[in-house]
């Protein structure tokens, strides 16, 4: 006996095997990201006032990446539809478009967004020293406006050696706009467009600093979840792209020539996965970039 329903559908379930498989796999993926998102909620609710940063990510770039992923979800459906209509050349082009979208998404993340974070610096000020840095933090202004307290000074670190060299006593930081001009009402809300650090240099005594790091996973619960979730999501995108490349290469043309339905099924299954990856991003984007 051979394994039935690898390509044709089983009459009483109306499905072929891989389609059942992919839906089950996606169910487990929902639980995986569900676990991570619950952790995000748990940590965020637990965070003391002022300890959950806002406005540190680049919203326009994030929006663009969101659009790219959604676009790729459309192109992959078109690719599948072309296969169903047995038009391989068009399929090939739509697949290429999908792959390119995935590659652009990953490139933006890995070459632009993440490294920019690694270059950014933040120093949490000890509670007893907050007063001293009022000119950068503007906590009186924040309290008047009913905003959460500001505990961290961020920007571009000029003397990077300060992180490792104990003889250097202070951090020299090109301040982010919010710390350069903290009482300006324009700074009460995060900016939509990314604004780079200003020319204004702030000096922070190491003695007054609770913790100072670049924006790495170790910086805070916020960045820990950001890097973990977007990292895992990125791995999913990478996996999807690799599989799509395989389906776009000449090897898959052979499958098509043998039985076009076989390739169409494969594209359908991977397309479902791709939609899921897209859907996860649609949760990631607001949770980290907007809220």
């Amino acid at each position, binding site marked *: 006996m051979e394994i039935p*329903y690898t390509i044709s559908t089983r009459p009483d379930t109306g499905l072929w095997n891989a389609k059942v498989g992919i839906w089950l796999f996606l169910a*487990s993926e929902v*639980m995986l990201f*569900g676990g991570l998102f619950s952790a995000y909620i748990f940590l965020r609710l637990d965070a003391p006032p002022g300890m959950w940063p806002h406005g540190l990510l680049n919203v326009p770039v994030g929006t663009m990446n969101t659009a790219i992923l959604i676009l790729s979800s459309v192109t992959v459906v078109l690719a599948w539809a072309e296969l169903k209509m047995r038009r391989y050349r068009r399929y090939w082009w739509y697949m290429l478009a999908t792959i390119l979208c995935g590659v652009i998404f990953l490139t933006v993340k890995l070459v632009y967004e993440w490294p920019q974070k690694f270059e950014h610096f933040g120093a949490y000020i000890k509670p007893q020293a907050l007063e001293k840095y009022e000119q950068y933090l503007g906590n009186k202004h924040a309290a008047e406006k009913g905003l959460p307290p500001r505990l961290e000074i961020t920007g571009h670190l000029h003397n990077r050696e300060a992180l490792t060299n104990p003889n250097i006593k202070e951090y020299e930081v090109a301040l982010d706009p919010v710390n350069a001009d903290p009482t300006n009402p324009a700074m009460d809300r995060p900016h939509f467009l990314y604004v780079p650090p200003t020319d204004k240099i702030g000096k922070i005594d190491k003695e007054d600093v609770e913790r100072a790091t670049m924006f790495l996973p170790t910086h*805070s*619960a916020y960045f820990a979840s950001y890097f973990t979730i977007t990292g895992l999501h990125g791995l999913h995108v990478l996996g999807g792209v690799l599989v799509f490349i395989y389906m776009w290469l000449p090897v898959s043309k052979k499958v098509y020539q*043998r039985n076009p339905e076989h390739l169409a099924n494969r594209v359908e299954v991977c397309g479902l996965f791709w939609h899921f990856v897209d859907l996860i991003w649609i949760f990631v984007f607001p949770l980290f970039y907007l809220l």
Partner: protein
Amino acid sequence: MDASASLETHPPSPDSGATGGQDRHQHQGEHEHHELGWWRRYIFSTDHKVIGIQYGFTGLFFLLFGFSLMMLMRWQLAYPGQALPVIGKFLPHIFGAGTMPDGKMTPDFYNSLGAMHGTIMVFLGIVPLAFAAFGNFVVPLQIGAPDMAFPKVNMASYWAVFVGGTVMLTSFFVPGGAAKSGWTSYVPLAAIADSGPGHNPVFNGQTLWLIGFIFLITSSLLGAINFIATIIQLRAKGLTWMRLPFFVWAQFVTAFLLLLAFPPLEAGIIMQLMDRVAATSFFMPAGLVVNGAAMHISGGGSPLLWQHLFWFLAHPEVYVLILPGMGIVAEILANNSRKPLWGYKSLVFSVLTIGFLSFVVWAHHMWLTGMGSTVSAFFQTTTLIISIPSVIILSAFFISLWGGSIRFNVPMLFATAFLPMFGIGGLTGIPLAFNSADLYLHDTYYVIAHFHYIVAPGTIFALFAGIYYWFPKATGRTMNEFWGKVHFWPSLVCMNVIFLPMFLQGMLGMHRRWYDGGQGWTLSGDHVWGLSGFQWNTPISWAAWIMGLAQIPFIINFFWSIKHGKKVNDNPWEATTLEWTAPSPPPHGNFITAPVAYRGPYEYSLPGRERDFTMQNEPVEPAERTRRKAVEQPVLV
């Protein structure tokens, strides 16, 4: 199989123009498949039976290994601080000088043994054996399928468990030794363990535990997808849902538990791994002080979060440990009492109910975390409700025996012993379900006794029963009955001598993780039957070692019978389910012709029949239909 025959099994569907032609191509590929070399046939095989057997050997190996770890711990518990005779001299050479200097166990090594015993038994012993090995070997045969739905995925899932197991074993030999924070790996203890001077940032016990775990989870997820898809898609003609053997139902629900409960733990594992290698603080609260020094971490994490993620898996996991065992027992009870299983439908609905409810009881492991009375009340209620279907299942099994003409062969001995043992384990869970009682019993030997009664003389006996029962299907030979009994009786006695006194120890207040077995604990002078809580360790330990000896007849019998056991026909137990219609051992593709099911799984002792069993593939005769109005119409798909 030629292409013309395959056309019957793949009717061209309207949406696939070229199915027939493509099938021919596929089959040319399959022919090459039949001439595979030795490596592809026995090592990197995609055949569900070979993979099942690979899982079986792996599971048995790890059960023995995990049990050996415990036998070592039992020395320290019974004779704390004394040098272990004979083997004590060799162990430092194997596990490293710091583990047992002069044959005396260090606290760290004791903790490693405990953590790894739990991890290995649960995730590398029982799951591979109960779920993966029996599931792989038996389920496709019982549903009349040629193989699993995704044979390559199946192979991948075995190799993932292999890698995961290897990583876990390797972790014993890295500096600092294997993980030592319990099978639960509670943070922040686990997050700071095995780090700092003398430890490699990656190759240390706890980090390897996490990495190994990711492989084990991957394996279970792939396996679960495969099982569910196989059961949905590859059931034989006429094998409707209510004609599935109960074992298939049990595996079906088990697969769902693994599929949906493991990923949140995977999320937790990834976060704990990040805490260890990327210095994040998912589980580290702010202001954590270790050894008098403040940790240089961001804080803001939550230790409770880990407990939630862990138990969200680990409670369903306990049902993963028990359901396949129940499935095996059901098959064997029906077969050897020569009666239909009593209450088949209620069994099926009970197992489904357990499946659903097991996702909403997890916090009963966390009563002592101060969750608040509202949350506790919710989880107490769900926990009590979930015991109802368990009781229904056990009762149905007992009633199945009533009035049967029981054959006490070795599989049946193990299966019947399962019933009271599972009963004791389950009933002793009820006090734990109450917050107020558990405040006292939590983390004592009472809890240890509770779950071991279910898993050890419960599940493991069911697994032995299954091995003796399906051995003839895998090899065409039976295992020796006499040595099977020599295996059974001492094991039964020892199991009870080991675990029954643990209830007493727990009620006397003995904590489950004491390194000195409670010797240094002088608060309670209470004695039970003349022995104090600490003194009870000695008989328990001796029983454990004797039980180790009692496994020798099994091991010898097992290997000896593969070659020299008594040759038997394809259906030596005169059973009814489809796996017994295949040749023993079944060839690649399992059945000569695709089987068709005409009736339910347990048609034993039908009135008016010559034989006292009617196999599922025997068509219903018109005369029988009038005799037995209850017989359902055959449903053909």
